[in-house]
């Protein structure tokens, strides 16, 4: 239902700015992912959407109507907490039914003691009981309805939390790292289930995570946040293919995008003593830039076996065989070094992701090459992407 508009939304907490002038418009039925490292303000953002945290300044609008002062209940939302926040003293049935019961509360039901009776009566009402059964069936919880949350496994608890958010059919689903407490296998499964859920209910989702895989696989739109500032807003593909700055470039992708320092001299673009066969369309007067290249776009050959294309000498430091692919860490340079294992060795490494099992070894000299078309250029100073189309328009 709602289009969500963030208009210079900010949050100050105890003198610190947690969110700085957040601007975005999210269309209806999107699966929006708020992605960022821990402490970047993404959970605060979600809680402001929910109304659990006050907005310090700026305006949040659903369908053009400001909701800053609206109580959480009035926002027609559901919230799935990281800890699930299942009510430990209630059965699964009562947990799932709770939002419906509260929806049917009259003002005088909030009076002590009256509320208890009212809740019990409402739980037995045909329509409410029916909906609980239906949602429980959908999420395969029927057999557990009379258990307490304590007696459930992690995955089941997670499903109860989802069931509780589903039952009121809200316009907006807010999920705060709902998969972070699950083991890897279950996480993959729940990822698919939540995506399927989004397709089925056709409502807006806002999903907070620090896991880029979740963001890439589930989101239709991603907002990358760092230190309370929006780094990039776009589709997963846009964010992966054209990271707006070096933060996003490093944060998205595993291994992260290679950012290689390049200086401009009279002879051309210099990368670790090698003159590049190409240069950015325009250097904008900068003496140095960073060359960005995704690891899977980098080719590595053992020294003396190059494929005829221009290559740059390097030495292999790490080889990680993942079965279907191999990640090779290397350092540029034509002189072999003794790299010890440890933090010092893995600092300033560049990576290549190669298909299949590659016969490369630690310490081996090699040649690295890539296509100029796959290269992105970033300012060393601001870290921003040099966008040729943008440069043309500005």
């Amino acid at each position, binding site marked *: 239902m709602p289009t969500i508009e963030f208009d210079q939304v900010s949050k100050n907490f105890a003198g610190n700015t947690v969110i700085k002038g957040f601007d975005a418009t999210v269309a209806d039925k999107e699966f929006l992912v708020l992605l960022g490292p821990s402490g970047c303000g993404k959970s605060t953002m979600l809680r402001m959407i929910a109304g659990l945290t006050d907005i310090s300044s700026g305006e949040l609008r659903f369908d053009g109507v400001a909701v800053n002062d609206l109580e*959480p*209940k009035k926002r027609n939302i559901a919230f799935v907490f990281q*800890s699930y926040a299942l009510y430990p*003293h209630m059965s699964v049935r009562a947990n799932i039914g709770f*939002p419906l019961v*509260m929806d049917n*509360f009259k003002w005088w039901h*909030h009076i002590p003691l009256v*509320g208890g009776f009212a809740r019990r009566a409402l739980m037995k009402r045909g329509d409410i009981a029916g909906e609980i059964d239906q949602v429980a069936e959908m999420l395969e919880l029927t057999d557990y309805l009379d258990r307490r949350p304590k007696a459930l496994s992690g995955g089941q608890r997670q499903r109860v939390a989802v069931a509780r958010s589903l039952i009121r059919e809200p316009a907006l689903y807010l999920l705060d790292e709902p998969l972070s407490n699950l083991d890897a296998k279950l996480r993959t499964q729940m990822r698919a289930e939540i995506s399927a859920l989004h397709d089925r209910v056709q409502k807006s989702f806002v999903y907070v995570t620090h896991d880029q895989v979740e963001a890439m696989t589930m989101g239709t739109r991603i907002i990358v946040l760092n230190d309370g500032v929006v780094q990039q807003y776009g589709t997963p593909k846009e964010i992966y293919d054209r990271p707006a700055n070096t933060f996003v470039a490093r944060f998205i992708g595993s291994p992260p995008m290679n950012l290689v320092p390049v200086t401009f001299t009279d002879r051309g673009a210099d990368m670790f003593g090698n003159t590049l066969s190409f240069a950015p369309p325009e250097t904008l007067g900068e003496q140095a830039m960073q060359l960005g290249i995704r690891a899977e776009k980098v080719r590595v050959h053992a020294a003396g076996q190059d494929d005829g294309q221009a290559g740059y000498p390097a030495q292999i430091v790490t080889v990680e065989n993942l079965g279907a692919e191999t990640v090779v860490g290397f350092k540029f340079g034509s002189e072999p070094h003794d790299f010890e294992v440890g933090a010092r060795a893995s600092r300033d490494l560049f990576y290549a992701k190669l298909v299949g099992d590659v016969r490369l070894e630690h310490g081996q000299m090699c040649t690295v090459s890539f296509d100029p078309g796959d290269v992105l250029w970033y300012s060393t100073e601001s870290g921003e992407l040099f966008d040729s189309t943008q440069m043309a328009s500005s």
Partner: protein
Amino acid sequence: MIARRRLSTGVRALLALLLTCLAGFPLFWIINTAMTPTTDLFQGQQRLVPDISRTLDVFSVLTTDTPFLGWMANSAVVAFGTTLLSLVMATMAAYALSRYKFVGKGPMGFLFFATQMLPEALLVVPLYSLFAALGLLNQLSGLVLVNTAFAMPVALFILKSAIDNVPYELEESARVDGCSPLSILQVMVVPLVAPSMAAAAVITFFDGWNEYLFATTFIRDRSSWVGSTGLASFIGEFSTPLDTVFSAALVFTIPAIIFFLLMQRKIVSGLTAGSVKG
């Protein structure tokens, strides 16, 4: 190693036996004295084994010759009244102190703590005139009111630290689901701090059940006396047989002990959750 452990278990058990005897002896002595004929008591012929066969006789004398059961009923009214009133106010106040930031929170917290320092003996005179003005002298409800002033802050401290330990997300979730603050308190907080509520209930109940100073100054009518004042009236008088006096003490003690033992497990866990530390 095992031998050492066995030894330390043995030492522990011995120490426990000693402590148990120390703690248990006065209690045992109440029972024993109640079951020994008064004539024997005053001849210094109290044996170490209570004569249990006297139980019924002693209690029938207590019920027929003294109004003690009526006084106990009054005590029960005072104790339950104090418990109820204290818990209702303490729960709400503890919730506010635990969950909200507001102007005046510090001074209010100090107010609750400071009442722990006020000597009853200092307040008894001003409170007497206050209660005279309010027409609450000679009334059990007056005792409930004054006991609550001293019992409620203790309940508040236990409950506040218990509520501090309730995950805040539960309450936020309830807010999203449409609970009002009062509903959150009832539906989420109270059930989750039940053990601490039990501990607080026992402590406030004892305050109401045991209290003597205000009861003896505020309640003049003998029929409105409570157990503590009734029992104290036996001290130093000789018209009531001593075994009857001790049977009264026993009968007055038993409900408190039973109530306490029933709640014992919850008290320990309640104190752990609301551990007095910090």
